[in-house]
């Protein structure tokens, strides 16, 4: 009798801890097998043969199709510069410069992987060719639910979101590894009550 109870306890705790830690490794931690710069993480090897099991599992559970080395590289951020989770109720400024690339896009996604706002008039996405920039080619993108001057990306609703910045046709994927990519800062401006 006692051995059955023992086995049941071990099984219960084992399954629970194993499941929670696997989920945690895929959803919450950000950067196993990744190249990290500030809040941004990229997985340059996700489509390759040498991919590590965590990156491979994350790609499957996210439902993403990787970009090839000649196509570009996607950087993902779930936190702001200070490590706080990105929230749709808050306003942010994405400012600075990116590593060199022919073009890039920045998009905001909800937890299900859909664009935060995606209708005929507005979508939570920006293309590098349509930006207003400073003379030194740096830029500021304001992320907010209400219209802003300059480069504005719309968000709506409540809950977490993530940003994906995709650099297309960029030399950083073909250099010997990804050496210290330059990425914009994500600054929290304020939150609605």
């Amino acid at each position, binding site marked *: 009798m006692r051995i059955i109870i023992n086995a049941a306890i071990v099984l219960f*705790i084992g399954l629970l801890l*194993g*499941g929670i830690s696997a989920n945690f490794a895929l959803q919450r931690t950000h950067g196993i097998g990744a190249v990290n710069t500030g809040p941004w993480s990229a997985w340059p090897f996700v*489509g390759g043969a040498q991919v590590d099991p965590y990156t491979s599992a994350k790609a499957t559970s996210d439902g993403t199709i990787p970009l090839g080395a000649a196509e570009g590289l996607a950087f993902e951020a779930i936190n702001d510069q200070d490590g706080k989770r990105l929230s749709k109720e808050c306003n942010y400024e994405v400012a600075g410069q990116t590593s060199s690339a022919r073009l890039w896009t920045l998009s905001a*996604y909800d937890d299900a992987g859909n664009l935060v706002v995606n209708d005929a008039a507005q979508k939570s996405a920006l293309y590098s060719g349509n930006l207003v920039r400073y003379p030194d080619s740096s830029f500021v993108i304001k992320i907010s639910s209400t219209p802003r001057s300059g480069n504005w990306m719309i968000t709506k609703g409540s809950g977490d979101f993530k940003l994906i910045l995709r650099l*297309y046709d960029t030399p950083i994927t073909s250099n010997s590894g990804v050496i210290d990519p330059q990425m914009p800062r994500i600054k929290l401006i304020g939150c609605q009550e």
Partner: protein
Amino acid sequence: MKTRLIYLGVCSLILAGIIHIVIILLIPSLGSKDAAKQIAAKLDTHQFYHIGDGNAFGISTSDPYLKLSVCKFDLTKTAIQIIGNEAKTFWSASVFDETGKIIYSMNDRTAIKNELRVVIVNPIQMADIRQTQPEEIESSILVESQNMKGFVLLRALVPDPSWQTHSDDFLKSAKCMPYNTNIAIVPDA
């Protein structure tokens, strides 16, 4: 009592570790959201399908500025030739194997004369091509695949709505057709 608790705790942790590893390793083969699997299951071979942002095929977090076209191929019988019209917008193509691993990728600037001309072959067909050296091959990029099955994903940039037709034309005009590498070798006269 105390030793029993420690014993149980250690057993639980070992089991938790095993479960953790098993889950991580099994997700790629059992995950239902896997886009590569949906493409393999839903599409016919040797034809490009314009799939927009790919949502219908389980491709999530897709880039709203890039539209997709996909062609599933099978190299068992013939090689595959991929041809596209010239495009004024950024485009890229990648060749995936069945499991979604990238075999080869390119963009409009790495292509020969900025044109989409690719021939995908298996190792035997590669040997055939080396023997016959057909003319079309000179202007095409040759990709050798160890896997017989896979798919080609074509991406085209739509910077704003006025480019929609141009990008769509490029994606729709792309052809993915069987290519015969086994053309009878003309014996020396």
